[in-house]
């Protein structure tokens, strides 16, 4: 498989502060690639460098086999971008937003006339075509931004936290749209701090923190590599729970706020021990990407 994006040793500094410290990424064509990380990990800055919107201080970066330093325009012509913050044009309606945006790519006439109904359909906004931007809900705006990112029929779609701030219904709808794009053969690159989103959508991902890539792999491989397969979330008398489970082999405790997490290869044995202990309530679940994320990036609060 050919790589759509090849980044080697990307570095970004703001004065003394280094926000991206030597990032290497290779993104294969037709996959959904995730960049995970807490706030301030350097995700957005990395995306901006990939689009030539933020000059890199060091490193080499090719998109579609073209160096970003000299081919920014050509690269952006073949890329769709869904930014983190809504930047729809408030002076225009839904359909005008698509039309005006297409003009920036030099797309008009018959091509555009054919494309617009399909994009409205894709965004589920056909009957809101003439609505003003300010009358749309958050979910509708997001869908319109995704549709707008597709006006140039891009090979690569870059999404910066596409579902942040949306309700579950809206989020599921967006996920469905993104899977449809992937099925249509587009390469997706998305940043998120929702582990569920990454687990559902991404074929492959990297975990970033403090401007570095900590890990890479498929969601399943990362879970296998870093955490035990099963988890008990314990609440109640923590010390008692700890004492009860401590004798069991291959178990590991982690504490986040008022919850204890017990990671194990053998949950059945642990559950047996806990049964009948009224002071302890627990939830048994398979390990997920969030467990990996917290293990890799630490459990401290980020701002």
């Amino acid at each position, binding site marked *: 498989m050919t790589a759509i994006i090849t980044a080697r040793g990307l570095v970004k500094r703001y004065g003394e502060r280094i926000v991206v410290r030597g990032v290497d990424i290779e993104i294969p064509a037709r996959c959904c690639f995730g960049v995970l990380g807490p706030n301030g990990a350097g995700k957005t800055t990395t995306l901006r460098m990939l689009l030539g919107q933020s*000059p890199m201080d060091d490193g080499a970066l090719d998109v579609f086999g073209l160096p970003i330093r000299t081919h920014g325009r050509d690269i952006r012509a073949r890329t769709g971008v869904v930014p983190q913050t809504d930047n729809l044009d408030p002076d225009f309606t839904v359909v005008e937003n698509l039309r005006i945006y297409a*003009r920036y790519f030099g797309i008009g006439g018959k091509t555009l006339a054919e494309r617009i109904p399909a994009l409205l359909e894709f965004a589920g906004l056909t009957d809101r075509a003439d609505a003003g931007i300010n009358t749309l809900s958050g979910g509708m705006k997001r869908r319109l931004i995704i549709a707008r990112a597709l006006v140039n029929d891009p090979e690569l779609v870059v999404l910066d936290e596409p579902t942040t701030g949306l309700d579950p219904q809206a989020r599921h709808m967006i996920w469905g749209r993104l899977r449809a794009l992937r099925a249509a053969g587009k390469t997706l690159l998305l940043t998120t701090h929702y582990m569920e989103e990454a687990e559902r959508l991404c074929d492959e991902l990297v975990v970033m923190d403090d401007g570095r890539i900590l890990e890479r792999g498929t969601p399943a491989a990362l879970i296998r590599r870093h955490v035990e397969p099963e988890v008990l979330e314990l609440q109640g008398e923590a010390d008692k729970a700890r004492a009860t489970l401590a004798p069991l082999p291959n178990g590991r405790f982690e504490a986040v706020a008022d919850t204890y997490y017990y990671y194990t290869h053998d949950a059945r044995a642990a559950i047996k021990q806990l049964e009948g202990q009224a002071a302890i309530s627990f939830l048994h679940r398979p390990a997920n990407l969030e467990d990996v994320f917290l293990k890799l990036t630490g459990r401290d609060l980020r701002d």
Partner: protein
Amino acid sequence: MTELSHLLPRLRHAAFAVWRRNALVFRKFLTPSLFINFGEPFIYLLGLGYGLGMFIGNMMNMPYLTFLASGILASAAMNTASFEAMYSVYTRMVPQRTYDAILATPLEIEDVLAGEWLWSATKSLISAAGILAVAGVLGAVDGWRALWTLPVIFLIGLSFAGIGLIMSALARGYDFFNYYMTLVLTPMFILSGVFYPVTSLPLPLQTIVQVLPLTHAVELVRPLMAGLPLSNVALHVAVLTAYALSGFAIAVLLTRRRLLV
């Protein structure tokens, strides 16, 4: 790494996409836009032109109404382009994030600014055309030669739009524009020969106003409207062009520094 060629306005198709966007918004909000652009100059023209004109009679071999109308025409071009390049551009750049969206397309900052620059001058042209028509009806225009003011107006628009774009690139909020308006635009409006000939200013001031773009704008517009012979055309055009091109180039540099981080 900025090559010199990037600082000259590159009028690619892309710049016209931005121009077109603004033109579409303008068409949508036509009534309030026109009202704002005409209202003030119209009041100056009627109020001062007739009111003061009554006492003054002729000034520099022309009726005061014609004298004033030509000054108002040039200063309306200044104001329209300045406002567009400051308030409207800043709104699109900062709170509305329109440029963020545009810069994710093949357009570069110089395309966006070239579009804004041309659009600001276009707006000058639109308001000036209206004022010219009103002045014609009021009998302040000497014949069709006055239509030659229109290309001049476009150039005046480009000069002030260039400076306005610099202000937008530097602004941290709308308040910033008040400094430029109070310290630069208003004194220029008063001193550059809009209301009275600059030759009536004290000598040191006369020298100073010679470097101001509005002075040269008025010197070009006035004889064209009054049907009098033009003088020093090359100088006036050169000064306005220099402001236009250097303003644009500096604005590109500053906006790059602001947005490409």
